[in-house]
């Protein structure tokens, strides 16, 4: 994990975390894409030996601490979403970029629903459709993040 060039992976994850806690105006905030999930899914698809469910869980745990939710909620949701990628990375790699974006949307929706279900189970939150707005932005964001991270991976020849 901490071998050569793994630092770059960690750095991208750190930037993703930063982007997901950065203060934004309230109107835009509902549309904040799931940065951490996107970056994790990319790395898990590209280098499943490097970034796996454990990494996802740790990142989710960090998010839990940063967002002040009950510890373990985001961690579990992140792990479940990344598990699907870890199981099917060879299939997903062969899809076109827009198909991948749609799969990314499904994963993001699953992530948000798992978080919602757990929260519903713990504290009585009611469902608002605005909880699923990030799915849209995540789908739109995927191609750009994909090309950017691929460039990063090739430039630093991370294996």
């Amino acid at each position, binding site marked *: 994990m901490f071998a050569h060039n793994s630092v770059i992976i960690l750095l991208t994850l750190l930037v993703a975390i930063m982007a997901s806690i950065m*203060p934004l105006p309230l109107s835009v905030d509902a549309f*904040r894409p799931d940065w951490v999930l996107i970056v994790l899914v990319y790395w898990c698809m590209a280098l499943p*030996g490097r970034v796996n469910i454990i990494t996802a869980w740790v990142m989710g745990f960090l998010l839990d601490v940063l967002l002040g939710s009950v510890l*373990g909620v985001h961690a579990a949701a992140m792990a479940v979403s990344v*598990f699907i990628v870890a199981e099917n990375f060879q299939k997903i790699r062969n899809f076109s970029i827009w198909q991948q974006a749609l799969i990314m949307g499904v994963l993001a929706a699953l992530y948000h629903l798992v978080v919602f279900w757990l929260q519903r189970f*713990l504290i009585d*939150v009611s469902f608002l459709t605005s909880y699923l707005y990030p799915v849209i932005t995540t789908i739109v964001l995927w191609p750009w993040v994909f090309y950017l991270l691929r460039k990063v991976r090739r430039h630093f020849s991370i294996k």
Partner: protein
Amino acid sequence: MNPIFKHGPSPQHRLVLVLFCSALLIFFDHKMASFESLRGYLQSMVSPLQYLANTPKLALTWVSTNVTTRQQLTAENQQFRLNELEFHEQAMQLDIIKQENERLRSLLASPLRSELKKMVAEILSVDSDPYTHQIVINRGARDDVHEGQPVLDALGIVGQILHVGQTTSRVILITDISHAVPVRVKRNGLRLLASGSGQIDRLNHNFVSQSADIKIGDILVTSGLGGKYPEGYPVSTISFVSNNESREFSRVYSTPIAQIDRLRYLLLLSDKEPVSIFAPKAKPLTETQDKSLIKPQVQSQIKFKVTN
């Protein structure tokens, strides 16, 4: 490229392990609340991240404060002058009323209200998690922040301190679904409970009887019951009262007075006075506290010791 057939545990095993960890964490954090002290440490550990994530906003505000025209500045200055005049006049009146109130209270032999210690804090980050309404501020244990401390903005109550880190702390807002404030109607003193709805612009009031005298536009202030919030600070204005007589209770909603969606500077209040004589022993005095404000406490402590 790594080989396709990897060594190490399979994804399924990892998932089971990780979900088990999550379940344990959720159980111990939510049901047993056994992570309260650990949360403080975690909060301190991640605070550099929060400071770092806040830098773009800081840069933008720096730019917007530095790139202003002279005209704007003079206009602003004039506005401030007018405001100051007005506030000064109000403060004079307040002083007289305060003195009068104190005299009356001493006549009635009721306890004098103590001055509250105030501290200004700035918001570091607002949670992007839609299920909890929390913010992080740039004050922590180093500034003598403690759990449960009430937090205000210029207009009204915002929330209370939830977790304290070394240099940052987390504030739970009154609109959070797990938070409630004891309030009373300013007009007639009717006691209510304002519980968060999970929506940024609404507070719910449960178990309000149909005959209760509440009108739209009524101002709710803290009632001081429960001992968390000091008495008399504005909380919300009533925005909706249902008059459906077939229900057992009437539905009442209100909108927070504090501008919860555009907070920037906050005020932390602290009364270091023990709430009652049965309250646990006060902590030893530190030098950072203002001596003049805590004198009554010292005296009461000494008295308490003597009677012991």
